């Protein structure tokens, strides 16, 4: 877009949307929310950046390489946390028996492995949303109008 007001306000608002999304992911075991809704918020902020500034500047910030690392790394870390439970006790994906610190209910650093799983899910959902949007838009580029008109 070529509008000056839309570009300035988007540049002001996007960090606050991402901060709110990270807050909802990290407090997934205290307040309603969790990994999926927080990941959707972060993905939506990157889609807003693509719509306002064009496709080529957005691909520099979230390239194909970073999408590969985020998608595959999410599943590998999830299975890795499960395998820690398999090695320390007898079962896959346990919380108390594997020795994760449980803390006091209601604090931020509590509840064992639940915040770690929420962070993993949040990264994966955000990367999925941005990758799908870039794939569906890509056929619309042509030589003399780079980006979305």
């Amino acid at each position, binding site marked *: 877009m070529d509008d000056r007001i839309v570009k300035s306000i988007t540049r002001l608002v996007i960090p606050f949307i991402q901060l709110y999304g990270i807050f909802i992911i990290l407090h*997934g*075991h*205290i*307040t*309603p929310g*969790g990994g999926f809704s927080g990941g959707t918020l972060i993905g939506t902020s990157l889609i807003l950046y693509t719509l306002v500034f064009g496709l080529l500047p957005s*691909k520099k910030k979230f*390239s*194909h*390489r970073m999408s590969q690392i985020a*998608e595959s790394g*999410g*599943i590998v870390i*999830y*299975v890795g946390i*499960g395998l820690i439970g398999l090695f320390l006790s007898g079962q896959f*994906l346990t*919380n*108390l028996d594997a020795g994760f610190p*449980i*803390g*006091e*209910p*209601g604090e931020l650093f*509590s*509840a*064992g*492995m*639940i915040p770690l*799983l*929420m962070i993993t*899910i949040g990264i*994966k*959902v955000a990367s*999925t949303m941005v*990758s*799908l949007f870039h*794939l*569906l838009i*890509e*056929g619309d580029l042509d030589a003399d109008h780079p980006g979305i008109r």
Partner: protein
Amino acid sequence: MKKHLLSLLFLIFFGILVYSIMEMPTMQNQEAPSYNEVTEYYIKNAVNDTGSVNFISAILADYRGFDTLGETIVLFTSVIAVASVLRTVKKKEGEDY
């Protein structure tokens, strides 16, 4: 003519479904058939077993953690399916990776 017949058929279908929904329990309290022993066990023992105050996060990540693993695999598969249809490999110089 055909469109009016189709709309009439849908209205009759709506009437049949509403008539069969009137049998469902309305004042949901603790004696409803969907509030059984599994829910009572989850509500009573979630804070002692996992230490999280939110019951839904405790069910998602601790009691039913395998379903969440399967769901991340579904998200991954959908990205691969769309990329295999839409992303064609062109032999053209100056294209970003």
